[in-house]
């Protein structure tokens, strides 16, 4: 997984950090015999996250019940 910026950057240093409006290249294999990738928005990968703070709080409350 790594960032892609458009237009392409001149510096490899800039590719170490991404912004919400940059893209991510996600690579993956299929059944140990093929190679694939997709390009998605950084912001898309952050949508609908559950916050750890909330998950842990709910977990503790359930445990106390």
């Amino acid at each position, binding site marked *: *997984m790594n960032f892609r910026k458009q237009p*392409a950057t001149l510096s490899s240093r800039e590719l170490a950090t991404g912004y919400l409006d940059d893209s991510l290249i996600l690579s993956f294999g299929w059944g140990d015999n093929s190679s694939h990738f997709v*390009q998605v928005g950084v912001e898309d990968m952050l949508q609908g996250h559950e916050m750890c703070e909330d998950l842990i709080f709910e977990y503790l409350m359930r445990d106390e019940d």
Partner: protein
Amino acid sequence: MVFHSFISPNPASADRISDILKATSRPNSPIIPIYSQLDYWGRFHTIEFQDLKAFNPSLLTLPYAGERMNATFVVVAREEYKWQWIDGIYVQPRHVVASLLHLSSDAQRRIAPKLSPRIRSHSVERMHLIHSNATYFPKCEQDRDGQTSNIQGPEDPRLIWSHLGEPLMIYNSVSPEDSDLCRHFYLVDLRSVYPVIREILSDTSDPAPIRFPQSLPIAYRGQDGIHKNWAIFTTRGGDVFVHVHLIPQTIYKINNGMEKVISHPRNEENCITIALKGTPKPRIHQSTPFLDVVLCRSDDDSCDADDPNNHVYIGVIHAQHMISDARYYETRVVTLNYSLPFNYISISKPMLYCTSLSSIANKWAFQRQNASIRSP
């Protein structure tokens, strides 16, 4: 019950990051579909390697200088399974290949949704990584599966741009002589093992010096068993860290060896175990390096990108499910705090790649093929 408490090094920063993440779109769907921006129908691209097959790829976007070599990305991948008889012993030679990919500008043109779009790589090379001509590796007798005692070479490469602009690669291979381990991780600068990348980066402004010119064996004191899927990440100062385990969260810093910086008790629950409750812990592992994200848009002048409180690390993790004898990987994204102790901040819902069109297209192609067979 042992529990991983949520300790934020900076509560104000944690609140701000939490607010930003909560402000993203919150779909009601139990999963997040992933559509590729590169294809009109959102499908994934398939990489074709010249004269060989390879899987488990890792890609790096190249800076503009790559265009001179017809290269948008560099890809490294594990060459397909091969078996060979050597002196009456069955061995697995095992290689990692590198190549370049060029993405044409018309990738999004509207065409009928047939199969996954294909992209052919070029400048394919088997990299000279740590490899042995031995046919049996006695240090692997401890491996209960017995799968590793005849593997001669490298596998599972992962690439990352360091904050200094170095293309770093981590992979595993046979262990050095002075190690008791069966398999070992190594860290190397890609420029040292795939010269075309050195050539491309020499054309960029102020290329970083090469810190890891040879494969550096990395292991920690007390390490045992077979390890896979270590995830590296770097800080703005160029320090290199290794996220060794998600559960319990365990992080080392590469510093003349490996220095433990984060560890938690073995049975501790954490954000990931809670979110993936019911999945056996050994089946949950990281799948990519952790990358530095600024939680702002690049044109937002009011956002201070130099403020570490505006950053998180983002990485992909997998929960492995067995369906009959096939492995299925549930993909999720995890964010980490940008500074020590790198707490987990959030976890996504399961993500699914857009494949339904491929299924439809496969069916359509099958029907067409049958029709043409029936035609005189």
